[in-house]
């Protein structure tokens, strides 16, 4: 290597190397140009899309929910345009501060504030929590102008569910509420996270969720990286959910619910031509309107503590011993088994079977009793006698044919189907053979028999028409054709006449006669004993020990159009039930006359069901203070209510050891009226 380097050689090296550097610089320049060309041209589409998805935020507009209509097209559940406020807990910086300020702006009570704080903390990191709906514009505006201090709070115009008849339809329709985490996990749609979206939580609202929901609208907005909305781009309207049209007659449903008054009970009315359920009311009830923003702790505590279980739908989940209301059905079983309607027994107030005496309710005896008299006078001995002859199996079979112990294909969350006891059932359940006293108990609807009010109404309709009436809740434009029950000869007419005589003849419920000249009601009373005669006379004393009052009926008696079942829990006896049935049936033929009667009662009771509920709430809230546990989420609540209902109707662990001694009164009624109010204090 040349050790002698000159200045000129270094100049050459510099020139060469500066050329290299220039070339490297040019090369990098070309590389950059090519890279930029690649990103901006070849990948332009991809990056344009990504830039748009940055810039544009799609927010969903909750769809207007489909209406729930009654059979005549009037709304049982509709939507009201309103101003509402929601919170997205994830975006809230300081829950306590936000809730404090909101409560101040919206004039919340301490309890409402505690509820809101609880929901915000529970919902943390999840979907929107409703704060309030149906706001006046002033309050809405007050929240809107304070938004900079309220991160995560979303005031918006929207629609909220509105049930015009409130508590009357609570059990039937259920209610709506913000989706829970569980619901989102099973159905992870973005709509479920949208503020203001509500889904069905119970009843028909839950059953027809997919029909009612509709298609959400969408609003495209330009947003900054920080989430601030810069401007609206475009809006797609929502598509309202489809309406569903029920078989329910709205005014009748409301009437039935209100007519139950202070009692705890249920009314089911069925159209005998179509099987349409015209009314299915269970009282006391809750106001579904107030549930849709979440169930408040006061409301929950008030409802949960009430021993009349306002959260239970008693038409489907109340199981009761049917009492004497099964007698027409048992008589039909006798007829079909070949017994002549003229076959008679002498009733001397009791019947000796072996070495035991089974008493008739009329201790003095009915004398000569044939089938008609057995029904209209509700003679127990008549039924004891022939049941011993014909056996339990014919009765049990007829009970099942009439719909007792059966589940019906209805779109309801759940229905309890009760028990039709027979020897096989008893052997399996208790491992004991069927005893004569079991038959005796069954013929008067006591012992193991447990049915729900809907089943009683169906039984009434099937006996009245001789057709296999199936209930339905949704109108679908078809007229169902029912098969015959295949009752022989004039058996249907025999029962119709005997049941008419209960009301219009020499029967036990003369005061159930309709105040309408040309329509005759047929019916059958029933009193179901809850405890033995040694504990209570069934008419007074602790509410829990009073007898259930039942009444099944149909009208007109010789051409049945409507069938009805009424059950009054602990009403003291059937005397509490048939006036309700009479007025409800009257409403079907002459609404004004029925309403006049109701208004008289309501003046006495202290207002409509809604008014009484509101007043109770106010009284309860002021008494209770804030120290109440928060309400459970709707799904938990539904499970809890269901479990309690199941526990309430659980069959006895031990087999019965004897016969029921019937009350000495065919249509007893409570000697003290039920407590005013919804019955918190009634124990």
């Amino acid at each position, binding site marked *: 290597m040349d*050790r*002698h*380097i*000159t*200045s000129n050689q*270094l*100049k050459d*090296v*510099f*020139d060469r*190397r*500066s050329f290299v*550097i*220039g070339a490297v*610089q*040019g090369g*990098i*320049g070309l*590389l*950059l*140009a090519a*890279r*930029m*060309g690649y*990103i*901006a*041209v070849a*990948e*332009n589409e*991809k*990056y*344009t899309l*990504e*830039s*748009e998805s*940055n*810039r544009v935020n799609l927010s969903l507009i909750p769809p207007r929910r489909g209406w729930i209509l009654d059979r005549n097209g009037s709304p049982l559940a509709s939507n009201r345009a309103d101003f509402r406020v929601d919170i997205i807990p994830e975006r809230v910086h300081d829950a306590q501060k936000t809730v404090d300020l909101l409560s101040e702006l919206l004039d919340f009570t301490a309890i409402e504030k505690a509820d809101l704080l609880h929901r915000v903390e529970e919902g943390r990191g999840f979907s929107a929590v409703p704060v309030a709906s149906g706001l006046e514009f002033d309050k809405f505006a007050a929240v809107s102008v304070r938004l900079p201090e309220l991160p995560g709070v979303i005031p918006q115009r929207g629609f909220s569910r509105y049930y015009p008849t409130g508590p009357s339809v609570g059990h039937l329709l259920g209610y709506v509420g913000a989706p829970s985490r569980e619901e989102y996990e099973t159905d992870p749609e973005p709509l479920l996270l949208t503020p203001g979206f509500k889904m069905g939580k119970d009843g028909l609202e839950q059953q027809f969720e997919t029909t009612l929901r509709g298609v959400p609208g969408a609003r495209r907005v*330009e*947003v*900054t*990286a*920080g989430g601030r909305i*810069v401007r609206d781009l475009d809006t797609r309207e929502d598509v309202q959910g489809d309406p569903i049209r029920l078989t329910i007659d709205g005014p009748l449903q409301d009437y039935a619910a209100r007519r139950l008054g202070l009692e705890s009970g249920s009314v089911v009315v069925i159209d005998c031509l179509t099987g349409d359920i015209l009314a299915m009311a269970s009282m006391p009830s809750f106001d579904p309107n107030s549930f849709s923003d979440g169930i408040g702790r006061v409301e929950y505590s008030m409802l949960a503590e009430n021993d009349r279980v306002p959260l239970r739908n008693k038409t489907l989940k109340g199981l009761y011993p049917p009492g004497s209301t099964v007698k027409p059905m048992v008589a039909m079983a006798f007829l079909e088994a070949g017994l002549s309607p003229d076959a008679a027994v002498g009733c001397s107030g009791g019947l000796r079977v072996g070495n035991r005496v089974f008493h008739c309710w009329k201790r003095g005896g009915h004398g000569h009793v044939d089938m008609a008299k057995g029904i209209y006078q509700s003679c127990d001995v008549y039924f004891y006698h022939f049941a011993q002859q014909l056996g339990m199996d014919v009765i049990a079979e007829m009970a099942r044919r009439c719909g007792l112990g059966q589940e019906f294909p209805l779109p309801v969350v759940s229905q309890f189907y009760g028990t039709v006891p027979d020897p096989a059932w008893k052997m399996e359940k208790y491992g004991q053979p069927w005893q004569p006293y079991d038959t005796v108990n069954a013929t008067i609807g006591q012992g193991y028999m447990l049915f729900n009010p809907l089943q009683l109404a169906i039984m009434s309709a099937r006996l009245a028409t001789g057709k296999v009436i199936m209930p339905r809740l949704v109108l679908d434009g078809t007229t169902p054709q029912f098969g015959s029950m295949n009752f022989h000869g004039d058996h249907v007419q025999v029962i119709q006449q005997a049941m008419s005589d209960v009301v219009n003849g020499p029967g036990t419920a003369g005061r159930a006669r309709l105040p309408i000249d040309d329509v005759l009601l047929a019916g059958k009373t029933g009193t179901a004993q809850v405890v033995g005669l040694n504990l209570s006379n069934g008419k007074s004393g602790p509410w829990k020990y009073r007898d259930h009052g039942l009444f099944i009926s149909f009208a007109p008696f010789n051409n049945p159009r409507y069938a009805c079942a009424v059950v009054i829990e602990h009403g003291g006896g059937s005397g509490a039930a048939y006036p309700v049935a009479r007025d409800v049936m009257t409403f079907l033929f002459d609404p004004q006359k029925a309403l006049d009667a109701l208004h008289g009662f309501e003046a006495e009771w202290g207002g409509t069901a809604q008014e009484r509920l509101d007043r109770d709430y106010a009284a309860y809230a002021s008494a209770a203070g804030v120290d109440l546990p928060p309400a459970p989420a709707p799904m938990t609540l539904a499970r809890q209510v269901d479990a309690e209902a199941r526990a309430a109707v659980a069959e006895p662990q031990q087999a019965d050891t004897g016969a029921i001694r019937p009350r000495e009164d065919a249509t007893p009624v409570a000697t003290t009226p039920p407590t005013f109010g919804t019955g918190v204090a009634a124990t």
Partner: protein
Amino acid sequence: MRNTIALPAPLAQFPWRVVIPLAMLVLFGAMVLYSAAGGSLSPYASSHLVRFAVTLVMALIMSYVPIEWARMGAIPAYLATLVLLMAVEAVGALGGGSQRWLNIGPLVLQPSEFMKPGIVLILAAFFHALPVGMIRTWRALLVPLGIMLFPMALVLLQPDLGTALAIGFGGVVVMFLAGIPQKWFIGAGVAGMVAIPLAVMFVLKDYQRQRVLTFLDPESDPLGTGYHITQSKIAIGSGGIFGKGFGNGSQSQLDYLPEPHTDFVFATMAEEWGLIGGLFVLLIFGIVLRWGLSVARDAKDRFSRLLAGGLTATIFFYVAINLLMVMGFAPVVGIPLPFMSHGGSSMLTNMLCIGGLMMVERHNRRMGSSNGFS
């Protein structure tokens, strides 16, 4: 040269070749900054223009400084800057945290910036003074390395990887141009291949290592460290050929692009002006750098040559690293784009380099005319 056009001497000697492209670039930069501020001259565009005007005057004054002064001032300037760097460390240590600035009354000094042209200046002076025959000796390697590593270490302590690399790059380019043997570069290259992965794993701070890892796979962390690169590519890519139009860049206007007025100003520009704007910026940088290299080649003495070459390389380093970064070819190191990014230090450093180049150009012309070239 070009004596066919008879211009008055001051006008003819005015460095039009660089001032016109630079002014165009700075004006374009000001437009981008105007848009990045949401359509407002303040706070970016106006101060950008004022800084350019002030530093341009400074550069023009520099160009009248005799080159010998620069050569003789190299060692004092280097030492002074080193003292300032140590002062920064001391103040930082006393203040309980690292910092890069010195507050001297109303002035905010960032000494590491001065070190970028400073390292070029001292190495050019060193090789100028080094006897020609010693260029292949160890002294030609070890002394410059020592001169470089000391300030680099101080800057790394701040910690400021980008500036340390810029200092290193300027120094290495001067050594390369000075003619030290090629095998040393090859050896250093091989050593670097081995050392860089080790350095990444053991020397770099956590956040620096994270940046390197993210650079290798930006999509791995799209909302964290990879966010910058991803958003920058989205801005450039969505601009297409002609851009979204002035003031219509959604990435920058809606805050998706981080640092839209400093490190990622090129992405801000590319979103609104598209590929056309990008090519324009590359072209201007090409003209400026080509001018810088031609000044270096025309230089008549070793000091001027190395100074001009090194200063050009320093500007190039800024441009290249910044553009490679915004296009996803280099990790995010926090180096602004010369003459476009908003920021006083960057403008000052780059205009110091430009001023140095103008000084060499004026010196070349004087030497050329005194030597009778035309």
